[in-house]
């Protein structure tokens, strides 16, 4: 698919998304248009016993839009990719669910988020999770590696959804599951708003 057929320029959108989420990484308690951290995790129905045991630094930059584990908890031993792992909150929940025999690989494009997620994994002593630099549309994951791909509030920020879903498909093994949180609108968004780059991230 070429950029001419997309509503927005993918490169421009990606830079705006980087700017927005860099701020969430570095300034998690700042003024954002969405909830973050523990209040958001509570709102989205995450297991409060698990979240409560996590250090503040591992939760404060959480900015998901739903709960990828709500319809199916992960099984022990599963291999999981977290596409757009941010500061690592969902990766840490996944690491807890798959246990020591499982493995979680978070992929994110922001240095600030990667540094934070790696520090938090170390802080929590998690040996079954790692974080790699990359974008959702081109993840550094081998074909058919994952039993499960999770994601939270990231696919809606990809200009080329077809390419995004194609990449999620590539890394999943046959029989594997895609479970993700995302937003959807009930009322149609006018063309002028769709092409307004500010509304994708504001």
């Amino acid at each position: 698919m070429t950029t001419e057929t997309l509503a927005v320029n993918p490169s421009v959108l990606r830079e705006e998304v980087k700017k927005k989420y860099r701020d969430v990484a570095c300034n998690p308690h700042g003024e954002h248009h969405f909830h973050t951290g523990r209040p958001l995790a509570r709102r989205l129905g995450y297991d409060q016993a698990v979240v409560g045991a996590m250090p503040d630094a591992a939760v404060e930059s959480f900015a998901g839009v739903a709960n990828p584990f709500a319809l199916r908890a992960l099984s022990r031993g599963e291999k999981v990719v977290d596409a757009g792992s941010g500061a690592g909150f969902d990766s840490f929940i996944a690491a807890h669910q798959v246990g020591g025999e499982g493995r979680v690989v978070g992929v994110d494009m922001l240095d600030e988020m990667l540094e934070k997620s790696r520090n938090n994994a170390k802080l929590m002593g998690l040996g079954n999770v790692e974080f790699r630099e990359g974008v959702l549309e081109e993840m550094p994951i081998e074909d058919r590696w994952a039993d499960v791909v999770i994601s939270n509030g990231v696919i809606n920020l990809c200009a080329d959804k077809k390419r995004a879903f194609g990449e999620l498909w590539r890394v999943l093994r046959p029989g594997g599951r895609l479970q993700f949180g995302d937003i959807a609108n009930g009322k149609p968004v006018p063309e002028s708003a769709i092409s307004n780059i500010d509304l994708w991230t504001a």
Partner: protein
Amino acid sequence: MMKETGFVDIRVSAPYDTFGEARGEKSARRFEVYGYTFIARKPG
């Protein structure tokens, strides 16, 4: 798009009021934007 890619057994959760009481609530209400959990399977 999920079906088009080839995913099957697609299920969607009830909506989450993701933006309720947040600064972005007004925009979210305007277009009835809610969060959802999606699950699907790759055949095989």
